[in-house]
């Protein structure tokens, strides 16, 4: 008896392996899905690389720490005097003076004994990219590349945590609503109406007024709000389609209890859609975190949103591309990671939904 049971288990294991292999083959056929996977893997690599660099001592935390690190980057600037009229022989317009490696004597009220032609020894922050700082430093002398790495850790923790929580809640509630129907269904639907009625951004503002939001607080808030809201309705409509399948009826006839049918027959068949939803809601969670940090409402030390917030409050965003390393990397990182998750979701969509496949 036990022998056959073991054999059965063995067989099931093999079947599962086979299914995973088949699904992976289907997924890898989708070119865009693979691109998304590469993007996500790249950011995961960045997120894991930073602690590795600190532990092995390649990076000195005093210099490279994304929040409290500081690097003295000194420069010798030639003191010059800007001409009163433009164009002069050296400068085309007002904006060209002082040129690179030069400083205007009018700005040197801190060092009054310097004269034109002298060299002025100073620290420059934000410093442009160099060999020691691949993406330069920000206005406080902190390494931008290290901040990007820290930001991707925050994005992964927040995105995955809130998406898992949200999809967990909405899958359970959605299947319950579909399975029991009637009053339970009406209650759950009106509950998600209530959540949908509240404007999301102002609501998060109010919540941030109550408590200092840390990363994982925000993940829970976003997860619960997302899980109670519109996704319950979508999951419910999917569960309704599963509910009328013949195997659910046969399970009922053979004497399966309500909860057994719910958890063993309906839930596993809703799960693919739920997984899909999860991948898409990671995109939303990353965007929400960035927006909230961008508006300066979160109590997080460092994230991509905060990097953009700082570059905006310091006035670099309107300085054009002169300080591109403060503006472009953070914004592109948010965009690419969110886009990467979206593309992975699309690839998964083609795996789970046979009608979307090419053949």
């Amino acid at each position, binding site marked *: 008896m036990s022998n056959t049971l073991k054999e059965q288990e063995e067989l099931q294991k093999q079947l599962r392996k086979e299914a995973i292999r088949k699904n992976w083959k289907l997924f890898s056929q989708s070119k*865009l899905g693979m691109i998304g996977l590469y993007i996500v893997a790249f950011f995961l690599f960045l997120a894991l690389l930073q602690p590795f660099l600190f532990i092995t001592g390649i990076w000195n935390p005093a210099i490279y720490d994304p929040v409290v690190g500081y690097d003295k980057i000194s420069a010798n600037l030639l003191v010059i005097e800007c001409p009163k009229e433009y164009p002069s022989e050296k400068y085309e317009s007002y904006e060209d003076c002082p040129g690179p490696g030069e400083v205007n004597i009018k700005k040197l009220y801190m060092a009054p004994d310097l004269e034109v032609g002298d060299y002025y020894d100073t620290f420059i922050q934000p410093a442009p990219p160099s060999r020691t700082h691949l993406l330069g430093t920000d206005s406080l002398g902190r390494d931008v590349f290290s901040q990007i790495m820290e930001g991707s850790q925050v994005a992964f923790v927040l995105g995955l945590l809130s998406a898992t929580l949200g999809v967990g809640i909405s899958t359970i509630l959605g299947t319950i609503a579909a399975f029991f129907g009637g009053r339970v269904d009406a209650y759950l639907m009106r509950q998600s109406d*209530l959540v*949908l009625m509240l*404007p999301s951004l*102002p609501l998060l503002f*109010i919540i941030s007024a109550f408590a200092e939001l840390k990363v994982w607080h925000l993940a829970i808030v976003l997860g619960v709000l997302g899980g109670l809201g519109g996704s319950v309705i979508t999951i419910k409509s999917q569960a309704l389609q599963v509910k009328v399948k013949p195997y659910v009826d046969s399970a009922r006839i053979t004497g399966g209890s309500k909860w057994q049918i719910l958890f063993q027959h309906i839930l596993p068949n809703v799960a693919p859609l739920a997984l899909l939803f999860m991948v898409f809601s990671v995109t939303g969670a990353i965007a929400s975190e960035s927006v909230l940090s*961008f508006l300066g409402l979160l109590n997080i030390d460092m994230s991509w949103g905060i990097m953009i917030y700082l570059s905006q409050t310091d006035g670099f965003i309107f300085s054009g591309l002169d300080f591109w390393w403060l503006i472009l990397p953070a914004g592109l990182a948010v965009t690419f990671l969110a886009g990467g998750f979206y593309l992975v979701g699309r690839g998964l969509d083609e795996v789970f939904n046979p009608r979307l496949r*090419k053949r």
Partner: protein
Amino acid sequence: MAEYIIRRTLQMIVVFFIFLVSSYLLFNAIPGNAFSNLLLNPDLPPDAYEKVLATYGLDKPIMERVQLYVVNFFKGDFGYSYKYYPKTPIELIAERLPRTLMLFAIVNIVAFYTGFLVGKVLAWRRGSKSETWITVTSVFSYTVFYPWFALMMLWFFGYKMGWFPIGKFLYPEKWYTAPWDSDVIFVLMIKFTAIISIIQFIAYIMTRGIESLSQRRNLRFASLLTIAVGSYFFWNTGDALTKKPYAADIAYHMILPVIVVTIVAFAGTALLTRTTMVEVIKEDYILTARAKGLSQKRIRDRHAARTALLPVVTSFIFTIVTIIDGSVLTETIFSWPGMGQLLLQSVLEEDIPVAMATFSFVGVFALIAHLVADISYSYLDPRIRIKSQG
């Protein structure tokens, strides 16, 4: 059906009641209140703060205030704004709403139309190289970090090139001598846009039945021409002529926000249309249409795209609901003083009557739209209708 609507309406009233009470409690639970800064002013006598609180009724216990507020709300009395004192929340909303509606109505119409067209082509050209590129671009604009993107566009077009103004919705110096306030112009512009879109929509419906492609195209072109000539005459005669420069000023300020939000918003529709359309193409009736020997374009536009329109319409309805909610960020970045900014400011300044009024405005809108979406969906898709009856 009637029974369903009545039951839903009753449930909606209960939900709205809970919504009202819970959001009032939520606002009151925020530490401090709208007048906390009076405490910091050393010139005021010590009892001034208490007096002000008593004037606005904020010294009463919280449960009594909730009761008063809910009763007054259903009587139609929304109180007075704390920050803009003699004004009521209704006056403030009436002042701000046209500005938001004007901006986002145009954005949504343009975004949904282009999104639908792009999505249609995407699904039809499945597997080609152009599909990959358009998809990558759409995904980029769908997931781009919006405030960052908007600021970059503002920097490039507003500051570097100097083509468009940076923020605000008018040049105040042009309006010193204006005999109207801006809302009159906004209402006129909304009416004008609505009439134009209705005419164009009717022309679209009327010409839909015409079989010949070239004839249909010519007729649609003629209708566009009529609208162009008609609007030229409208803006150059009578009352509208004097309002024209002011309307032009507002329109000039609107261009950049409209472009930026459209770029971000169209991609969602395009990707949604593509997904539904790819599913529809697998249906048997498309095969039948092919077997009948119809042209590719005809199958795409008349057979596939029409079915794929359904989820797009649903998402359009839900987008209308989220206009005010979604306008918060856009209006903050472009300093466009509309509903979104009112909502945000009232929440931040704890101007509770205004915040409650805007919240319930958004909430009622969402509830009704959800009901309308449910009902219209069952009418649009016969399969759902049959299921619900049987």
